[in-house]
């Protein structure tokens, strides 16, 4: 939405924040793949948000995981805002981008 783009600066930053609030964390290629955005663009926005103190990052193996900065003074308010954006999103968009199964599935269990 144009309003959100204006608020967050650009569409990629908006997508990154939606993804990270929705799933709790995110990495460059994962976010790029689900939204069909070039990884370099995602990287630039994640690093911009990190430099601004909105996100923090940590390596898990080879993967750099980004999360909301736990010390961000407006963390609760930012989560509430992004959660509201997620709720107001068209259902098909929610299903397409924000409902990946994250709970474990036993090895060998049919999908």
């Amino acid at each position, binding site marked *: 939405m144009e309003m959100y783009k204006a608020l967050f600066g650009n569409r990629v930053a908006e997508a990154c924040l939606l993804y990270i609030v929705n799933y709790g964390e995110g990495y460059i290629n994962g976010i790029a793949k689900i939204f069909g955005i070039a990884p370099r663009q995602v990287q630039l926005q994640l690093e911009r948000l990190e430099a601004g103190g909105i996100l923090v990052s940590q390596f898990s193996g080879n993967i750099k995981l980004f999360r909301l900065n736990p010390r961000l003074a407006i963390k609760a308010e930012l*989560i509430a805002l992004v959660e509201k954006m997620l709720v107001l999103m068209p259902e098909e968009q929610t299903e397409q981008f*924000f409902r990946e199964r*994250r*709970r474990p599935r*036993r090895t*060998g269990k049919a999908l």
Partner: protein
Amino acid sequence: MRKIAANTTREELAAIVVKKLTEHQIDAVLVGGSVVSIYTNNKYESRDLDFISPADHKKITQAMSELGFESAGKDFVHPSTSFTVEFPTGPLAIGDDLPVQAEGHMKVSGVTIKMFSPTQSVMDRLTWFYFSNDRQCLDQAIWIAQKHPIDIEKVKQWSARERQEEKLQVFLNRIK
């Protein structure tokens, strides 16, 4: 009681299984996605019936084979139904709360099926939202809460024990 057939419902199948288990003095509680399906009138559809039972797996396998189920890995499959039955490792737990007692039940064809209550089922689903960031499970918890009275105080107290007040707030905002 009906025989297991292609049109056997989830609830009927649960009753058939529980009746047979009871004949073998096996206690079992229905948990997981099937309970969500029941409480949401199939808004979320699970094809697995998960029972937690303290009984020995050999004893369970014997009872299930008498109903025509075959063991396929950890699942029990039946040639006449697409539902599968599984007995995940117990004890009955919700997050770090264990063991817990099932507080729900339903009666089908004279058989009482022990299961999670709507409140317990909400907490069970929220566990996956809290610890795996699974939004599907958050949706399921919301759907249950929209259809059934929930003991919100109990959910709050449990969430505090799990140190998940922030994510609890996401759930509470969605059911307002």
